[in-house]
C-alpha cells in the first residue's frame, strides 16, 4: 500500500502545487446496554481514502470508498483546487518523514473475545439496574476502534500509522414522576483495554450520586466563585481557550490577529496551558497529524500570556510560525483542519482545602456534560455540584451550567490546584461536521471568580 500511495502521488505531482493522499482501514466493536437490555452490539469495517490538492491557495478534496476510482477522484480534486485558486500557495516547511508507526499497547482489546467484553459491560449494567428502586434505567456504552492509515504527499512523506481508540460510559438514570436525573462514569484510552475494567466501585458511586440528585435542588441563577474539578477544568480550557487557539480562526483574520498577538495577556499569572499529541494514555495521543507533521507539546499560555497556537501547515506558513502537528481529520471522508489533541492546564500549588476555605458563597462544580464556544463566549456544563458556604462544602445542587467570556474569565482564575488528572470520555470534540474527534483533557482543580451560572 505504501508503494501504491507513492506511485499515485508521483502520477499527479505536476497537476497542482501540492498533493497528499490518505488511505484508511478501520474496524470497530461497539456494545450498548440501555436499561436492562443489550440495545446494540455491532462490528463495523471501514475502508476508504482521500486525495487533497492545493493550487494557488485553494484546496480540492475528494474522498472515496472504491479504490478503483482513485484516479478519477484525484483528477477531480486537482481540477476543483484549480477552479478556486486565486492566490499564493504557502505551506510551512516540514522535513519529509518516512515511518511505520506501530501500536504500543498495554492491553490490546482485539485480544479480548467479544463475549468477555459483553460480560464486563453487562456486569456494570446489572450493578446499576440492581442498585436501588429509584434507578429506573441505565446506559452502558463501550467501543474500541483500530485504525491503520497510510499517508503520503508530494514532498516525499510516506507514513503508515496504526491507532487504537477505546472508550465508554456507564450512566445511572433515575426517574420519579416527571423528574429524571442521570450521573455517569466515563473511561477511555489509546493504549489500554484495562481502562474499561475494574470500574465497579466508581459505578456504585455514580448510582449513589444519581439517587441523591433526585432530591437536589436546582442551583440559583447568578454569578458565583466556582471551583471546577479536574474533569470540568479540562472541558473549561478546551472551550474557553483551546478552540480560539486553533490557528484557522486567526490566520486570515487581521482583527483577531490584533487581539491574539503572541505575548498578549489572557489569564492570571498562575495560568499555564498546553496542548500535546505526546500524552500516552490519552485519546488525543498522536505521533503524526493528518498532514504527516510530527506532533509535540505546544504551549498556548505561559504565566497568563499567549505564547502559541495550534497550526496546520497552511496556517503556520501564512503566519510565519512553526507547524505544531494539529491538522486532524475525523476520517478519510474529511480534510484535516486545526484541532486539539490532549489539552492541559498545568498544576499549580494550591490544595483543594485552601481553595474552598476562603469562599463565602460559591459553587463546586463536578464532572462534565460537555461544552460549546463561539470564541468570545463559551459555556460548559457540570453533571452536578455542591454549594460552598462559609468556606465549607455544603448541599448538593443539580443542573449546573456555566458561562464565561474569553477576555475576562481566564483572568478570573485565582487559584490553580496542586493535583492533576487525565480525563478521557467516550465523546469527543466537535468542529464543523467533524464530530466526535478523539481528544483528551488534563487538569487540576481551579477556582474562577465571577462565573455566570444558569438556574432558577
Amino acid at each position, binding site marked *: 500500500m505504501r508503494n501504491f500511495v507513492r506511485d499515485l502521488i508521483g502520477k499527479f505531482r505536476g497537476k497542482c502545487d501540492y498533493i497528499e493522499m490518505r488511505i484508511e*482501514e478501520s474496524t470497530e466493536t461497539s456494545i450498548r446496554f440501555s*436499561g436492562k437490555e*443489550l*440495545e*446494540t*452490539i*455491532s*462490528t*463495523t*469495517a*471501514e*475502508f476508504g481514502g482521500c486525495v487533497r490538492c492545493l493550487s494557488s491557495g485553494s*484546496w*480540492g*478534496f*475528494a474522498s*472515496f*470508498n472504491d479504490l478503483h476510482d482513485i484516479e478519477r477522484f484525484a483528477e477531480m480534486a486537482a481540477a*476543483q*483546487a484549480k*477552479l*478556486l485558486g*486565486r*492566490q499564493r500557495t504557502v505551506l510551512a516547511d516540514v522535513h519529509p518523514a518516512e515511518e511505520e508507526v506501530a501500536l504500543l499497547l498495554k492491553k490490546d482489546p482485539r485480544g479480548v473475545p*467479544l463475549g468477555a467484553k*459483553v460480560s464486563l459491560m453487562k456486569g456494570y449494567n446489572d450493578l446499576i439496574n440492581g442498585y436501588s428502586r429509584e434507578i*429506573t*434505567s441505565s446506559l452502558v456504552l463501550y467501543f474500541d476502534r483500530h485504525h491503520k492509515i497510510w499517508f503520503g504527499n508530494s514532498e516525499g512523506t510516506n507514513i503508515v500509522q496504526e491507532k487504537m481508540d477505546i472508550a465508554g460510559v456507564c450512566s445511572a*438514570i433515575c*426517574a420519579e*414522576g*416527571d*423528574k*429524571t436525573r442521570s450521573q455517569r462514569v466515563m473511561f477511555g484510552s489509546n493504549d489500554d483495554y484495562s481502562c474499561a475494567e475494574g470500574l465497579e466501585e466508581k459505578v456504585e458511586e455514580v448510582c449513589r450520586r444519581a439517587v441523591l440528585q433526585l432530591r437536589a435542588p436546582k442551583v440559583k*441563577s*447568578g454569578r458565583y466563585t466556582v471551583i471546577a474539578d479536574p474533569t470540568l477544568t479540562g472541558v473549561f480550557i478546551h472551550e474557553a481557550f483551546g478552540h480560539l487557539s486553533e490557528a484557522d480562526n486567526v490566520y*486570515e*483574520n487581521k*482583527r483577531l490577529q490584533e487581539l491574539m498577538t503572541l505575548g498578549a495577556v489572557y489569564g492570571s499569572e498562575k495560568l499555564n496551558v498546553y496542548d500535546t499529541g505526546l500524552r500516552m494514555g490519552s485519546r488525543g495521543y498522536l505521533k503524526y497529524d493528518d498532514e504527516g507533521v510530527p506532533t509535540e507539546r505546544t504551549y498556548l499560555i505561559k504565566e497568563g500570556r499567549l505564547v502559541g497556537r495550534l497550526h496546520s501547515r497552511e496556517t503556520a506558513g501564512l503566519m510565519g510560525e512553526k507547524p505544531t502537528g494539529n491538522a486532524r481529520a475525523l476520517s478519510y*471522508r474529511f480534510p484535516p483542519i486545526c484541532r486539539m489533541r490532549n489539552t492541559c492546564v498545568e498544576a499549580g500549588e494550591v490544595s483543594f482545602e485552601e481553595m474552598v476555605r476562603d469562599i463565602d458563597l460559591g459553587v463546586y462544580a463536578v464532572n462534565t*456534560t*460537555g*461544552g*460549546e*464556544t463561539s*470564541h*468570545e*463566549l*463559551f*459555556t*460548559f*456544563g457540570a453533571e452536578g455540584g455542591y454549594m460552598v458556604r462559609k468556606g465549607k462544602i455544603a448541599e448538593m445542587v443539580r*443542573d449546573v451550567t456555566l458561562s464565561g*467570556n474569553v477576555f475576562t474569565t481566564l483572568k478570573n482564575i485565582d487559584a490553580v490546584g496542586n493535583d492533576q488528572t487525565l480525563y478521557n470520555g467516550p465523546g*469527543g470534540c*466537535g468542529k464543523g461536521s467533524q*464530530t466526535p474527534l478523539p481528544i483528551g483533557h488534563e487538569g487540576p482543580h481551579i477556582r474562577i471568580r465571577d462565573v*455566570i*451560572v*444558569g438556574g432558577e
Partner: protein
Amino acid sequence: MLDDMMEKAHAYGADECEVFFQEGTVSAVRFEDSRLKSMDCNQVIGVGLRVLVEKRLGFGAASDLGKIRLVAQGAVECALHGEKTGISLPASAPGAGGIRLEDEGVRKLKPEELAEAATRAIGRVNQYERGILVFGGIGKGDIRIRIANSSGFDSEYRKTVLWATVGGQLVDGKNILYCYREWAGTSAPMEVEKLAERVISDFRVSRVNVEIDGGPKTVIFTPRAGVALFDVLKLGVNGMNVEKGTSPIRNKMGERILSEKLTLVEDGLLENGIGSAPFDDEGSLLRKKTVVDHGVLRSLAVDLRTAPKLNVPATGNGFRIDRYTGWQSYQSPPSPQSTNWLLMPGERSYEEILANIKDGVIVDLMMGLFTGNLLSGDFSANLMLAYRISDGKIVGRIKNAMVSGNFYQIFRDNVVAVSRETERVTEGFRTNVFPYLCAKGVMIST
C-alpha cells in the same frame, strides 16, 4: 450484492436478515475569511446488516464491499450475544408513494455554479460591511437508499439534496460577533442571496450591545431557537425513552403536555423536506401524523424494535442516524427518530407580539443546550445571539447571559403567543417549519 450479503448471513446461521444499502455523491464548496477555500467531493458507499438468530439481534456495517463475508460473520457473532427481540421485518415493498425527492436541476449543478453562488453570497455580505469575514458552504448530494430483507421487502428511493450556510464573523474591539443562516431542501432553486440578506439583517440588529438585568422575562424564541428547544420533546416522544421509563411524558398519551396554543404535526412526506422519504430505514411507510394536538399528546416515534414492547404498530420512525452529525448513515443501527416537525402557526403577527412586550428578550441562537438534563426538560444555555426588547422594540444585542428553565413547564404553562409567520429550519436530517414562540417568566441570568 444485497442478495449475496443475505445469502452469506444465512450461511453463517442467521434466521432473518435485513440489508440497508446507501450510495451517493456529495459535493460542496466551502468558504472562510471571505474567500473560496476548498471544493470537496465525497463518494459514500456502505451497507448496514441486521441479523436475527433465534430472534436475537446483531448488527454489522461496512464501507468495504469486499468484506461482505466478514460483516455477515461479525453480525451473526454479535447476534449470538445479542438480546431477544420481538422485531418482525416488514414484507410489503411500497413504491415511492408519489413524493418528489429528486430534482434534475440539483443533479445538473456544476462545481462552477456552486462556486459562483458562493462568490455572490460573499460579495453581498461584504457589500454591506467589508470588515465581516464571510464563511459557509454550498453543497449538493445525490443519494440512493435501498433496503431488502428476508421477509421479501426490496425497495429503493433516490433523493437529491441541496444546502447552503452563509455566515459572517465581525471582530470589533473585544467583541466577536457571529451571525449565520442555513437552508436545505431536496430541490432547486436555492436562493443564496436571500440567506445573505438574512445574515445582513442579523448583523444590523446585533451591532449594538446593551445590558440587561437578570430575572424572569418575556421571551420570544425565534423559529430556530424553538426547534433547538423542541429537541426535548423529540427525546420525550422517542419510543425507546418511553419504553425504558425515562421519558417524563411516558404515561401522558391523550393528556395535555403543552399549551393549548401548540399543535405539532410530523410530516415524513413534506414537500422539499430533506427528512422526507417514502419509507424509513427499516421499510416502514412514512406518513403525516399529529404529535401534539392543541397541547394534547397524540403519538410517539416508534421503530420496529420498540413497537412490540409498547404494543403499538411501528410509526415509520426507524432511522439510522449518526448520533453526532445527525445525518443518515449505514454505520448506525436504526432507532426511533422523529422526522420533519411542523409546529402550526398562530394568529398574531410577529410584529404585533413584539410590540406588546415592554421588557423582554428575543432568543435566537443558544450554545451548550445539550449539556443540560434534556430528558427531564431542564435546560440552561448561553445566549450566543439574543436581543433585548424594550417598549416593543429591539434595542440591541445582549451577551454574557444565559437562559434556563424547564421545557415542559415553559411550553405548557407560560406560552403567551404563537406567530402566524413560520420559517423552515434545517436540523440534522430534518426540515422543520416553526413559528416564533412567545413565553413569559423565562429565567435570564446575567
